[in-house]
């Protein structure tokens, strides 16, 4: 089993089940477990050199650009929604380091399986900006993109995707793609669902190559972490499965990157699954339909604004002379241009097929569906004839 040299993640040795009377000394605890944590880049942009992962300057810049793009797309989408030009949208501001940091550690052939708050990672995976706009404006067309074969669509049903991730990972190993792994994203609230537990258990029993990244943003809509769970960390949920678990600063893209990279190395080498808790904060409303002032202590936002993942990363790459104000101006201009192009493309889309729901019920259609399609089209014709 090959592991990256400075791995943050290890698997503890696993003695067999206890069979009395080979009991261990009952005075002392028989089994001990621990969870460690990781921060590399603190909120001021100071680097803990000793933990710095091996990332090229190119990749550092790529990561930064990805986070900025995600933030700007979020801004723009929120505005579109407020202008009534798009439906309800969940927002991702604050999550950029989690999703982009983890995605940077992935290979193209790895599978990206997540939910609705992974915008940054999705864009890095090649999803066009236009897609999210389409999707959140009620079009299935926004859930697919060429090259998206290994980027699954958003799972709105919380935590259900964790099981898909396990199945995909199983299939990869069985098909001999032993170097391919799966990264699965979910939220703190998601860890309460039974499916999360079943996925953790299946993943650990099968020792499949999957990395669960929990974006612990302290809220599940209005429900705070303390009402969601009694556990002091989410990482410790891995202990239930004798799975490696680690808690990382989720606003530190380097820490997220390193933990994910180590977990992926472990997974690729046959070492099984890992749980990563990335501690972060949801900086905007849950979705545009939500009003956090009803439940959120306002000082939280102030505290967490200081820990912004993008600000600290910019400081860091500026200190490394990889970035300057001019580049920043350029980047913002480029992003805006891309975004505006996507908005324009999105708003000019008219090629939606009204009866497409009938096309995709089954791969081979059936009389019953076709009869209903005919009836449906006939009705539409009558309706438009009626004026």
């Amino acid at each position, binding site marked *: 089993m090959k592991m990256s040299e400075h791995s943050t993640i290890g698997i503890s040795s696993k003695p067999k089940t206890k069979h009395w009377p080979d009991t261990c000394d009952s005075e002392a605890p028989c089994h001990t477990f621990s969870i460690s944590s990781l921060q590399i880049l603190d909120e001021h942009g100071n680097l803990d050199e000793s933990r710095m992962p091996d990332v090229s300057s190119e990749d550092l810049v790529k990561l930064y650009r990805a986070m900025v793009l995600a933030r700007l797309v979020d801004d723009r989408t929120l505005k579109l929604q407020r202008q009534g030009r798009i*439906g*309800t949208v969940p927002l991702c501001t604050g999550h950029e380091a989690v999703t982009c940091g983890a995605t940077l550690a992935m290979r193209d052939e790895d599978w990206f399986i997540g939910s609705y708050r992974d915008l940054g990672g999705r864009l890095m995976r090649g999803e066009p900006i236009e897609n999210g706009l389409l999707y959140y404006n009620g079009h*299935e067309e926004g859930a697919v993109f060429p090259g998206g074969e290994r980027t699954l669509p958003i799972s709105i049903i919380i935590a259900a995707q964790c099981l898909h991730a396990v199945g995909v990972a199983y299939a990869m190993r069985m098909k001999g793609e032993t170097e391919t792994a799966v990264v699965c994203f979910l939220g703190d609230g998601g860890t309460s669902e039974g499916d999360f537990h079943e996925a953790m258990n299946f993943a650990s029993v099968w020792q499949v190559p999957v990395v669960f990244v929990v974006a612990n943003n302290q809220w599940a809509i209005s*429900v705070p972490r303390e009402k969601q769970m009694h556990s002091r960390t989410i990482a410790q949920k891995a202990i239930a499965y004798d799975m490696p678990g680690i808690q990382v600063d989720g606003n530190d893209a380097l820490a997220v990157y390193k933990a994910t990279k180590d977990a992926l190395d472990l997974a690729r080498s046959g070492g099984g699954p890992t749980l990563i808790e990335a501690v972060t904060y949801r900086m905007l409303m849950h979705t545009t339909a939500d009003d956090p002032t009803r*439940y959120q202590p306002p000082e939280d936002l102030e505290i967490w604004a200081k820990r912004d993942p993008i600000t600290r990363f910019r400081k860091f790459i500026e200190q490394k002379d990889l970035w300057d104000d001019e580049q920043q101006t350029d980047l913002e201009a480029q992003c805006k241009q891309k975004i505006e192009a996507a908005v324009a493309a999105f708003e000019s889309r008219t090629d*939606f097929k009204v009866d497409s*729901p009938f096309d995709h*019920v089954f791969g081979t259609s059936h009389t019953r*569906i076709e009869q209903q399609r005919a009836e449906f089209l006939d009705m539409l014709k009558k309706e438009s004839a009626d004026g």
Partner: protein
Amino acid sequence: MAKLNMVQAINRALDEEMARDENVITLGQDVGLNGGVFRVTEGLHEKYGEERVIDTPLAESGILGSSIGMAIAGLRPVAEMQFSGFSYLMFAQLEGHASRMRSRTQGQHTVPLVVRMPYGGGVRALEHHSESHEATYAHLPGVKVVIPSGPSNARALLAAAIRDPDPVVFMEPKCSYRAFREDVPEEPQVMEIGKGQVVQEGADVTVISWGAMMRPTIKAVEAAQKDHGVSIELIDLLTISPMDTDKIVSSVKKTGRCVIVQEAPRSFSPSSEIIATINDHALMYLEAPVKRVTGFDVVTPYFGKEQSYLPNERRVRHAIEETIGF
């Protein structure tokens, strides 16, 4: 009398029942401080405290399973599923325990609980937020399925559901939540579960609908009456299961014609059962096939296509015309 919309009326019923019986509690995701994502539980947290208005962890089976325990032990839980599209995660608890504890123990243990859930389309919501799958619950013996259509019956039926000795699935047409207001009397109201309501009597054709579809249906009925001078009997089903056989059968025996309007996919749906009920008890009175206006046997599309997908006034009118002209 107060003019309330459906959200307010449901909130009123919850408040009244919680005030009346200290065993009534409510639990679900975001039902506390936030007052529910539709604000149906607004103010209850403040008034009745955290113990009786519980923000639960994000786990539907957990919500229903623990509600079952609460109900067995003498509470009257009103559980909220944030959207009916997520309620399937508790289907096993409902089927396996809530619906059966009474028969399993020949009445020694019972599960008087209500599970509320907004359902249905028309509000431009994300995937899983627009389905109308009441038939999934209606096929379960031991469970009642109730769907109000307006503020007034929502309030009175919810009160009845809370007082009912058995599990009630209470599906709320979310697109009617704030669509209109009705006069709601000051004193608590309770309506009998298991009965449909004849909204208006008529002689020529029976029109049956429920929930959100009542609004386009009423409009279509009015238009058809005006345009064709036809006399229409309109039934609001209100309880999907157990279904009010008598009301359907006696109406169809009188009119000989029937139109059913539902939002749900067509096959294996409430309209199928209504037609079967007519077959079982009144077939020979039919002068035309029963006409159904329904959703389709496709996955409910994203909202970009829901306007074309959902039954509307015009489709209902056409169906009435066709049935009369048959």
